């Protein structure tokens, strides 16, 4: 698919910047917070400080596995200066 903005062609690398995936990520993060609280109520023999790290460790893992560069990175256009019409 060809994307164009103000006559300039955009690089078609927006596939990782989708709101639906962001929602899925938010559920993953929130779910991890809930999970660590539930694990505490079950008497899991792990420090509450370590359990509290779970959502952040999980986020890092997701970034390491699916973050990447090139097509997986943030849209290159985000790094360009926006020049509106006068």
């Amino acid at each position: 698919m060809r994307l164009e903005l103000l006559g300039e062609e955009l690089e078609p690398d927006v596939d990782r910047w989708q709101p639906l995936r962001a929602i899925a990520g938010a559920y993953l993060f929130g779910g991890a917070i809930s999970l660590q609280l539930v694990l505490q109520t079950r008497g899991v023999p792990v420090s509450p400080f370590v359990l509290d790290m779970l959502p952040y460790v999980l986020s890092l893992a997701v970034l390491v596995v699916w973050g990447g560069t090139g097509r997986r990175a943030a849209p290159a256009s985000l790094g360009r200066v926006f020049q509106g019409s006068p």
Partner: protein
Amino acid sequence: MTSNPGGNALKARVLVTALLAALLLYPVVAPSQGKLTVGILHVGSINDAGYNQAHAEGIQVMKRNLPEVEVIEVENVAEGADAERLMESMIKRGARLIIPASFGYLEPALRVAQRNPEVKFAHPGGYKRLPNLTTYWASTPEAFYLLGMAAGKVTKTNKIGYVVALPISFFLANVNAFELGARSVNPQVETRVVFTGTFLDPAKEATAAAALLDQGADVLGVIVDSPITVVQTAEKRGAYSVSYHYLGAQKFAPKGWISGVAFTWGSLYTRFARQVMDGTFKSENILGSLNDDLLVMAPFGPAVPADTAALVGARRKDLAAGKAHPFTGPLKDNTGVERVKAGEVFPLTDLGKMNWLVEGVVGQPR
């Protein structure tokens, strides 16, 4: 002297400007004479039915007792540079007594107090003092022991859940005292504790409370800044609750309310203000208890039968008279290690060293 004829006119203009400025600034910088201004900083909302509202109500009581005292009250002040700036600005506005009402204001308050030796400070729950900075708090384990007795009699599932901010020693001591009180009337009681990792996060508190109820708990307790979320979650699910910090939390649980431990700072704040006005303020380490008017047990709710109320009342007298102690040995922690030998007690002055959870509590103390 001057050969410049405009020099005098310039001097006169500078003089007039300086005079005007002095007149404008006078009411701002001049200390209020004979009248006291009190500044109080809250870390959260004064409508939290918890930690902050207890302090705010203390100030209201002080205002009723001493109507001539003026109050500068600010909510939701971040702990750190913001608090320091605000205290300095309160002093510029004439405050001569400042109550930085959160543990995290200790270091900023110490810095401001050192720079302003003529201003008096009262800081809650701290461990450092200055000649013009006094510290105050109230010892809570005995009250939590009594709460535990009432809850131990009310529970039917023998499972109680506690939502606690952080595993710090004073909170562990409260949970331990609660479990020991509950077990003194009902040896089957198990207390499950969840640490949310923060002093206020209603979403986490609601999740933790619901998870504890799902595990079969029918009584919930709470040690975070605002008890509202946990008490309401219990009420919605038809469970009972024991509260902390503020008496007014009872309105959130008309049916399931058992009781609560609450701070009542009004008489102390009145005393501080009087001391500053008559020049008798001195730096002290004030620690209240159920035996004075800084800490109270909330009235029992409809869930508590009369014989239980009488039992708790009798034990309260024994605790006050020194005939009973919440941490009487032998006590083991929840990994089986002996912590208090038979015939000994864990002194209430050593609570800062209580880094374990007593047998019967499910949870990790660190």
